[in-house]
């Protein structure tokens, strides 16, 4: 399991041979796992410098199948745990993963507030519209009026708009991927990790057991005669803010991303919806304590700090 820094990294490097995913056949999670491993290989960081922090649910199990440090945490709390991990050791490449219920439901408050911080981490949200592990209840992404075969009645709550929520929360990299579009997804994950700041990728995926609406056939558009999934770049959409000092451009790009976020039905956009270079939380901390610009708390905060000056202030 030891990988020397010089060894050539491949997707296989990040695989765990003796741990087998217990996802159902045809689950989109396999596609996401495969894309993550390929992306990690491209990114070139050895496994011990990577930490995968995941939530609870089918998606949350992904941490077990990646050769890296990992914490399979609590339902909706992966971002919190990841925040602690990243701040303790900024040298780690921190990936966060969880389902749509995890991120947009029970963890929605943390999703919003993590956007405000802009820590240098990437968050992958597996969006299949349902709570799979508890047998198919509607997730916050299930549209009002929709009813899967597992639901007793159609949904009567509005669905959340993940992209719009991410924009409003201050995420500086927002993308949508599709689990079955591997090449594109690998590229998005690589861009998300390389982005300085918090990146969010909403990854559409089928749940073949419980979601009979968002199926592979649905995404392929069998019923409409064309693939529903399309690339934003194919239409010349550019979500990147080219001049971060230009507030007008920022607002325009945010508005464009939000407008795109409502597109659903016959055509579903994928790719980077928004990207902004902005100071990260780590940059702000280094502004307070310059040592943090090049060192982690792990290296700096040794026990036995001299407190004589602090005590004297109370004399």
């Amino acid at each position: 399991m030891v990988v020397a820094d010089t060894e050539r990294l491949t997707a296989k490097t990040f695989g765990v041979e003796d741990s087998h995913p217990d996802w159902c056949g045809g689950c989109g999670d396999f596609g996401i796992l495969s894309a993550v491993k390929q992306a990690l290989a491209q990114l070139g960081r050895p496994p011990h410098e990577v930490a995968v922090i995941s939530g609870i649910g089918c998606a949350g199990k992904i941490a077990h199948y990646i050769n890296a440090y990992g914490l399979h945490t609590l339902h909706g709390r992966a971002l919190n745990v990841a925040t602690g991990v990243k701040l303790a050791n900024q040298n780690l490449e921190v990936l966060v993963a969880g389902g749509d219920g995890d991120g947009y439901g029970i963890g929605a408050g943390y999703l919003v507030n993590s956007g405000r911080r802009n820590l240098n981490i990437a968050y992958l949200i597996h969006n299949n519209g349902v709570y799979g592990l508890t047998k198919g209840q509607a997730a916050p992404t299930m549209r009002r009026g929709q009813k899967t075969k597992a639901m007793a009645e159609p949904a009567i709550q509005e669905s959340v708009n993940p992209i719009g929520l991410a924009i409003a929360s201050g995420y500086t990299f927002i993308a949508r991927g599709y689990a079955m579009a591997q090449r594109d997804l690998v590229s998005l994950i690589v861009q998300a990790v390389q982005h300085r700041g918090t990146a969010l990728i909403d990854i559409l995926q089928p749940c073949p057991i419980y979601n009979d609406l968002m199926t592979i056939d649905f995404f392929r558009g069998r019923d409409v005669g064309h693939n529903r999934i399309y690339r934003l770049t194919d239409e010349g959409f550019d979500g990147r803010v080219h001049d971060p000092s230009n507030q007008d451009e920022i607002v325009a790009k945010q508005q464009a991303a939000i407008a795109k976020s409502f597109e659903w039905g016959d055509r579903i956009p994928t790719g980077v919806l928004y990207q902004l270079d902005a100071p990260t939380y780590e940059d702000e901390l280094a502004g307070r304590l310059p040592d943090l610009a090049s060192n982690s708390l792990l290296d700096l905060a040794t026990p036995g700090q001299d407190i004589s000056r602090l005590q004297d202030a109370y004399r």
Partner: protein
Amino acid sequence: MKNNALSWMIGGPALTGGVNRSAELFAKACSRAGLYVFSNIEYHSNIMGRHISYRVRTSDTPVHSHLEHVDLLLALDAETLFGTPEYQDYQRHGGHLHRVAPDGVVILDAKAKVDHSAIERDDIHVVALAYDDLVRESVEELGITYNARRHSVMRNMVPIGASCALLDFDISHVLSLVAEVLPAHRQDMVEMNRHVLLHAAEQARRAYAKEEFHVTLRPRPERNGHMLIKGVDAVGIAKIHAGCAFQTYYPIAPASDESVMLEGHQTSYPIVVLQAEDEVASMNMAVGAAHAGVRAATSTAGPGFSLMAEGLGFASITEAPGPVVILWQRGGPSTGLPTRQSQQDLRFALQPAHGEFPHIVVAAGDAREAARITHMAFNWGDRYQMPVVVMADKFIANSLVTLDDLGLDDLPIDRGEYWTLEMNGSEPYRRHRLTESGISPRAVFGTPGGQYVTTSDEHTERGRIDEQVENRMAQMEKRMQKLELAAEEIPAEWQYELVGPDDADVTIVGWGSTRGPIVDALPVLEAEHGISANFLQIRLLRPFPAAVVRETLARARRAIVVEDNYMGQLGLLIAEQTGIKLERMALKYDGRPFSQDEVVEAVCEHNEADIGRLVLSHP
């Protein structure tokens, strides 16, 4: 004539009154003069206007609690004397006039609408000073045009100056502190404040009818240089000393003062203080940081601790090294009494989440203990790889106490067992390896070759999700076994203390901040009531030092449990752990801390008759 044994109180409205600043100025002046000081505050959950009372007690010997009576009552308004009028929906409090000891003095504003006939006490003296007139005269004396809006804030200096005069306390101790306590934007008012203090002292001498007041304050210059510090600040310093790299919090009374203090030191020490979106986030961020290898902590009160429950269980099953959680108790349940005292959260802290899991619960008796225990808590978190809950409360958080130092320098540093690549050979790393001690050496995130995943699910030695029965039992036993190890290894001084004589008529049993009033009551019980008493303070609540408690109680002739709660929660814990049911209880659940007098009263009453459950309150 009592030298240096003073019980003093100032009262007034929050924010506009300047109660806190004047009380802390006076307390600090006494401390700088070499006196031992204990000072505590009562305040509402309110920003502006509601009543605050702030006590200062001084002594020639160490003092750790307040008394019921006051020798000097400084009133910034009539409410301080009489409480709130009864025409309101209910009387919010009854004022403090009844606390003034015979021959004591009330200092009040002659121009305030105080009905002197309502004082109805011919055993006390009233020193009435025209606060605003004195301020105006002092300002004008400096050749400055008086402006009520700008200058009336200094009216709180009037009773302070008057106090110095009555106590024959060298006012230079106060004068020299004015510049220190005034904020930067008020430095132009230092001279004015000093003039007000001097002018008030002079007027008070004239206004006081008697030759001399029965308490005087005499500086003890040989004892100069000790600290005067609140519990929240003591704990903050301990965290910095322990190398705590990461503190999370969500604003809550009375805990956030600790985090705010730490925020002020982020530019000079390697500590990040993160104000999270709630206590769920606070807790889980700290757990993540602990797993990643740094010392991490969070700090909260009961309502926040309720939200931390889930994360505590997560930290424990994943064997995180920590975090350290400081639980500053306040009056519950629910929002309860946000700014008031209680020890209601013991049973909750012992079982804060679902399932069975190990964690350490330890309670501090005062600010110094809170600092020292916080330091040790990081060691225990690292060594036993479990969260540690340090219990304190509002009484410790907000009270000022005189200390020589925090006693941190000599404490050991133990970061527990680390895993290194050489330990493994060709085997993959097992994060939860079954060992004789139950402790599995931990790999810090980032260590080459140590990659592992662990999970909130039950898991194997390698951290893989597993529901097989033998593994489940082995991992449960491994985790719980660490508590037995902690019970064996944690030195006795951190587990309990028997204060006073080994053999005594009465054994007082308590935990946490009742320590102060109990320790102060022991010599009084002996000297004034002929009762020899000792005090069993239980610090370690989980794992519980059952053997020593059982043995101490078996020797006790008459044991009384003293607690700031309704249920007698320590008594229940002792019964559970030792089989000994303590019938005698002295309980307080009025949201106020025990005073020294109340402990004395409780012991005397229990000594006279078999009263079982005694409830105290002195509104």
